[in-house]
């Protein structure tokens, strides 16, 4: 019995230590913004990696999501004879929820996993140690550029996702199912208010921080706890990072929505 | 730190630009010295650059790299770079970099005659 309580206590303390380390990691990551070295070019490179290269994935995701929304929305709304609301339905669900969440999830899958693996490899190959020994702050040099790039990319990708999705809904609703173009577009324009757009952007910024934070953290500490720096640790860290980021993004989505709505 | 090299005191006479350096010629000071040397190496009137190292306290790889750049600028126009007063360590560093062939290195005595007054 004492043993059970003891191991429970130990596990709790362990988790607390992890949380503390993760919090500290976030602090260092943010502190890196004001610390040298200059990071203009590394941020540009990361924007290229996180943003430009996610363009097609997000475009496809958004187009098909918009099309499905158009299809589903049409069949539901046509039961009430309100096909005219299709535009607002598609636009609102994209801008408020699906745009930010889908882009964040896609970016996590595409870029987050790669970021985690990249940093994990640097950890097991002693490259992070090498950075520290060159008196270069690994947070400022490695992690912060990714954070900044994520903060630039995700809102833009979200906006792009929204627009492409609305266009996809238009394609299905107007060209395929015969909703009048004017009704669709005016539905889009009249239902969306600034607050919806704003909420979507706030979400995407939050998701960017979450995703970069979790993915870089998992990579940074790949194998550290086990004291075993084998390649399998990178794989494990990457899987963990993607799962944890995705779940936290969905959870955070609920929290942000309930606060902002 | 010793006195910083003040490269303004270089002099140009009959196509020969002579400049004594002092203090460390190292990563912290090279950017400034480099400007002067490359500026001189670019001038058409300059046929030869002579650098006096006798009061240089330290030479590191960045200094050697700077000398290479200067030499390259001169060599394109057939000019020459002469170094004098190099300490034993500095000479070894240049030898280690396998660059002792391209610079004209004068020994201690020669340099004293050149820049004695």
């Amino acid at each position: 019995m004492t043993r059970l309580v003891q191991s429970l206590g130990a596990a709790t303390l362990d988790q607390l230590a992890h949380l503390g380390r993760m919090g500290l990691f976030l602090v260092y990551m943010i502190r890196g913004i004001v610390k040298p070295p200059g990071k203009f070019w590394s941020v540009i490179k990361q924007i290229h990696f996180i943003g430009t290269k996610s363009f097609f994935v997000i475009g496809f995701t958004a187009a098909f999501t918009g099309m499905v929304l158009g299809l589903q929305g049409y069949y539901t709304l046509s039961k009430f004879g309100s096909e005219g609301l299709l535009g607002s339905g598609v636009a609102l669900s994209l801008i408020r929820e699906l745009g930010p969440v889908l882009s964040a999830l896609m970016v996590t899958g595409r870029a987050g996993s790669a970021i985690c693996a990249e940093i994990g490899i640097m950890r097991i190959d002693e490259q992070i140690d090498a950075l520290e020994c060159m008196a270069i702050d690994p947070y400022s040099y490695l992690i912060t550029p990714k954070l900044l790039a994520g903060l630039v990319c995700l809102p833009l990708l979200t906006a792009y996702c929204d627009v492409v999705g609305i266009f996809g809904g238009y394609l299905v609703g107007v060209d395929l199912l015969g909703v009048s173009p004017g009704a669709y577009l005016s539905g889009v324009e009249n239902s969306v208010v600034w607050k919806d757009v704003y909420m979507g952007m706030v979400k995407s910024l939050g998701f960017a921080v979450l995703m970069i934070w979790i993915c870089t953290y998992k990579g940074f500490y790949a194998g550290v706890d086990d004291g075993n720096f084998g390649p399998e640790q990178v794989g494990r860290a990457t899987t963990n990072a993607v799962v944890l980021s995705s779940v936290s993004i969905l959870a955070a989505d609920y929290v942000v929505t309930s606060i902002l709505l | 730190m010793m006195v910083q090299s003040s490269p303004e005191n270089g002099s140009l006479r009959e196509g020969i630009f002579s400049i004594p350096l002092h203090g460390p010629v190292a990563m912290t000071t090279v950017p400034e010295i480099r400007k002067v040397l490359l500026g001189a190496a670019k001038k058409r009137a300059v046929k030869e650059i002579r650098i006096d190292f006798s009061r240089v306290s330290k030479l590191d790889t960045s200094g050697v790299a700077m000398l290479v750049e200067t030499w390259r600028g001169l060599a394109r126009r057939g000019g020459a770079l002469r170094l004098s007063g190099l300490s034993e360590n500095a000479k070894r560093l240049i030898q280690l970099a396998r660059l002792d062939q391209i610079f004209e290195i004068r020994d201690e005595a020669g340099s004293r005659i050149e820049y004695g007054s």
Partner: protein
Amino acid sequence: MERRRLELGVGLFLVIGLSCLGYLSFKLGDIHPWGSSDYEVHARFSNVAGLKDKAAVTMAGVTIGQVKNIRLDDGQALLTMGIHKDVRLEEDVIASIKTMGIIGDKYVYVSPGASEEYIKPGGMIRDTQPPLDLENLVSKFVFGNVEKSKQ
């Protein structure tokens, strides 16, 4: 070469992303950083049941502006509408609230007037008609029996 590709990729990404963001905020979100192209007109209704912000304001079926704000004022609903600059409303126009379709969106209908004078920006439409309470009507019509049976 590689650097140029990088710059091009990032540049394109930023341009497309920013234009999407711009479309969302300026066209859909109605943010007007360079001043609005509308002028404001107010109207008082006894009841605006179901009218929402951003609902269209129309005249003869043409959209001439939109509802900007609805608030309670002295037991009545005070509407603020943004009307396009190039549309001038006569003093004696009548504003009423109508519905598109049966459960479609509510909108403000402004019937043309004949007066020589025009409403100034920030002015008031005097004559208003509250909406026909369609929901009430429909529910009476459809669910009437149900309610009766309940009682």
